[in-house]
């Protein structure tokens, strides 16, 4: 059982919400001004996830890098593992925006796709 203070990001107010966890349950959520905040605080406490954006090296392209993103938020704890894979990857031009570059990256079940179109030189 532990307690955590979460800053809500759903709206600009940024309520500080106290969450008490017991295993996979949220026993207490207080400090929120609305329901959306409570929902956010719960998911943040139990399964914090983040969208990841970065860039992958391009070979033979008009730009040396293509910007990429994960197709879905990944567990916060996996961020640096996924970044490591992204940083070691290379892709050949041309790259289309939306093209899947890394499937099921670091076993997260999430893909990494290009967010930019990079033509060949």
């Amino acid at each position, binding site marked *: 059982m532990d307690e955590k203070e979460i*800053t*809500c*990001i759903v709206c*600009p*107010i*940024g309520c500080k919400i106290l969450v008490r966890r017991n295993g996979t349950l949220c026993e207490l959520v207080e400090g929120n001004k609305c329901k959306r905040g409570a929902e956010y605080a719960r998911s943040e406490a139990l399964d914090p996830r*983040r*969208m990841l*954006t*970065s*860039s992958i*090296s391009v070979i033979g392209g008009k*730009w*040396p*890098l293509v*910007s*990429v*993103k994960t197709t879905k938020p990944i567990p*916060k704890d996996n961020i640096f593992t996924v*970044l490591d894979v992204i*940083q070691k990857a290379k892709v050949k031009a041309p790259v289309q*925006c939306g093209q899947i570059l890394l499937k099921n990256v670091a076993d997260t079940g999430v893909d990494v796709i290009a*967010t*930019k*179109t990079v033509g060949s030189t």
Partner: protein
Amino acid sequence: MINHDVDIAIIGGGPAGLAAAYSARNQGAKNVIVVDRNDWLGGILPQCIHDGFGVEETGHSMTGPEYAEMYIDRVNKMGISCMTGTMVLEFTKNYNIIAINKQGLHKISTKAIILAMGCREKTRWHVMIPGDRPSGIFTAGVAQAFINLYNIMPGKNVVVLGSGDVGLIMARRLKFEGAHVLGVVEILPFASGLPRNVVQCLDDYDIPLYLNYTITCIKGRNRLESVTIAQVDDTLHIIEGTEQEIPCDTLLLSLGLIPENELSKTVGIELDERTGGPIVDQHFETTIRGVFACGNCLQVYDTVDVLSLGAKHAGQHAASYALNQFDQVRHSIPVKTLNGIRYIVPQRISRSGVIQFTFRVERPSQSAVFHLKANGKDIFQKKLPWVNPANMVEIKVELSDSLLKSVDHLEASLDG
């Protein structure tokens, strides 16, 4: 001189210029040209590889490049000419545009002009940081371009000055790319970026946020070696004895943006010194007939969604003007700002209808009420439960013909 004859010329091919172009074509303008000084379209968006763009507009959170490509595709499909690598040099007496690129000098005659030049970043000298003048000092946007576009890492041990969104995003980006981000320094008692970014860029990575702090000295004869930070009191004066030296090799400056209006000044377009951009009416028309302004050169927006909305209106009205669909008579009344309002756009009202105002407040407040008054009487009121200068407020107000005929100015103010 290569001559062009168009209906609408748009200076700047970033999100504002592209949205305006798209909207102008939709409104029926036939010959629309977009001119941009970079070799690419999208302005600053291609280097903004983080997400959060287009949430309001599309329901999806896109990255900057994706948002840019969405508009570039639309612009291409509509047959809008785009001249990249092209810099507008000046306007002629008749408001023809002289531009230059590798093909030569161009003269663009046009019926309407849309200014969409965006903005530039404040430099070290806007806040006069004393000390040495070493390498390793970058404005956040320039560092972002180096990392994301050109595959160049500016440094390894980084301090960020300014907690606006660009600074926060860059703190995280540098961390992701293996730099040690030693802290974000902010002179105000609160971060000026979105709470979401404070959480997802700083808290998530244990990057310290020094609130009520500023940089008092830069050290480094050749490359940056350290910065000295010190606490400030509530009048923003340094508190003696609170100095701390932070060894580092890179300083990112995220001090704020300045609307880019050097071109506007050359033709005598009246600027609002509070926004840094042109004074416009609700059609986004400046004080010069046929010249419209939108995007960050008009006012610095918080989100691209609100920016694009405004740019689309500007494009629509510019097209109407070019197609002679405007009323000839143009009398407008000013909107004056009183206590609590830092600035409001549009600054002038020239016709009745629904006006989309955007404004910023002077101070944070948790229970403010916005008033629009005519002849001292409230014609519109709205409770704003939570406002601060870092968040632009949008408000729709309907103004009738009879009202506008009976007053010579309106007043915007904030209570509480």
